[in-house]
C-alpha cells in the first residue's frame, strides 16, 4: 500500500516514531522527501515545476541503520511536461509506469543511521551518472508547502 504525505502528516501529528516520509532534504533541485517503499526500493520524490520526479533506490527500503552506497534510477511521467531528454528506450518503474524520461542514479549516504544526508550523482538515460545532487537535512521542512509548483529555472539535466 502506498504511503503518502497524508500518512506522514498524520504520523507527525501523533508524534509517532520515525517512519516513511519523515525524512526530507534540501537539494539544489528543490526539496526532496522519502515518499514510499516498493519491495526493496525506496522512493524519493521532488518536483520540477509541476512534474513529479521520483528516484528509485534499490536496497534502501527498510534500511534505517546501515546506509551506504546504493544505485537506482529516476523517472518523470510520460507526457507530463518533463523537461528532461526523451530517451531512445522506455523503462517501466516499480509501479509499472512506462516512461521515456529517466536516468541512472548513484547515491552515498553520509551517515549510516536515520535521518541521514547524502551525496548523489544523476544522469540522463543510459549515460553514467555525473551531475552532482546532494541532499541535506532540513528540520524545518514545510510539508504543507511541498508539491507541484511553477517551474523556476531552466532544466539543467
Amino acid at each position: 500500500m502506498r504511503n503518502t504525505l497524508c500518512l506522514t502528516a498524520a504520523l507527525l501529528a501523533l508524534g509517532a516514531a520515525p517512519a516513511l516520509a519523515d525524512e526530507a532534504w534540501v537539494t539544489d533541485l528543490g526539496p526532496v522527501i522519502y515518499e514510499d517503499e516498493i519491495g526493496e526500493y525506496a522512493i524519493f520524490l521532488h518536483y520540477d515545476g509541476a512534474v513529479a520526479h521520483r528516484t528509485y533506490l534499490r536496497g534502501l527500503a527498510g534500511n534505517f541503520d546501515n546506509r551506504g552506497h546504493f544505485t537506482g534510477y529516476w523517472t518523470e511521467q510520460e507526457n507530463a511536461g518533463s523537461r528532461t531528454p526523451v530517451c531512445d528506450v522506455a523503462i517501466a518503474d516499480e509501479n509499472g509506469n512506462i516512461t521515456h524520461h529517466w536516468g541512472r542514479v548513484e547515491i552515498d549516504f553520509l551517515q549510516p543511521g536515520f535521518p541521514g544526508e547524502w551525496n548523489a550523482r544523476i544522469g540522463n538515460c543510459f549515460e553514467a551518472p555525473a551531475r552532482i545532487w546532494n541532499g541535506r537535512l532540513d528540520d524545518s521542512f514545510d510539508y504543507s508547502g511541498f508539491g507541484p509548483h511553477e517551474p523556476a529555472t531552466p532544466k539543467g539535466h
Partner: protein
Amino acid sequence: MRVKICTALAALAMTAAPAFGDAAWTSNLGPVVYDVDAGNAVVLMHFTPGSGAVRRTFLPGLAGNLGHRGTYSGYWVEGDDTVSSTPACDVSIIDAEGNVTAHWGRVEFVVVNDGLPSAWDAQIGNCFETPATSWSGRDNGDFDYEAFERRRNGSPK
C-alpha cells in the same frame, strides 16, 4: 510493420540490389542477420551461444545508415518468455516495438566501413553496465537464410 527474413529471401531470389534485409554477418557470437527497421533503429538478430534464445539488438539512428561508417549506442533484448542467457535486470525496458523485458543490456556499435554489408565492431554489456564484451560482425555472403529461419521458428521458448 515487421520485415521478416522471408522478405530478404524474396529479395535475394529476385537478385535485388543489396538492401538491409539481405545483410548477414559471421560473428563471434554466431551468425547475425538484419531483421527489420523499427522507427529510426536498425534491428539485428542472432541466437545467443548459451541458451539459444533469440537476441535482438536495437540500434537507434542506424536505420538508413548501415552502409555508412559511424558509432551508435543501442541495446539488446531477449524476451522474458524465452530461456534467456542472462539474469533479469532490476529494471524492465520497453523496446522500440513495445515489448517489455527485464533481459537486456547496452550496446556500443561501430560500423567499420562504408558500403553494404559493412563489417562492424561492437561492445555489449548486461543491464546498465558499461558495454565491455567484444562482439564483431563480418560479411557472410554464403549465409543460409533458410536454416536461420528454421532455427528461429524452433528457438527455445
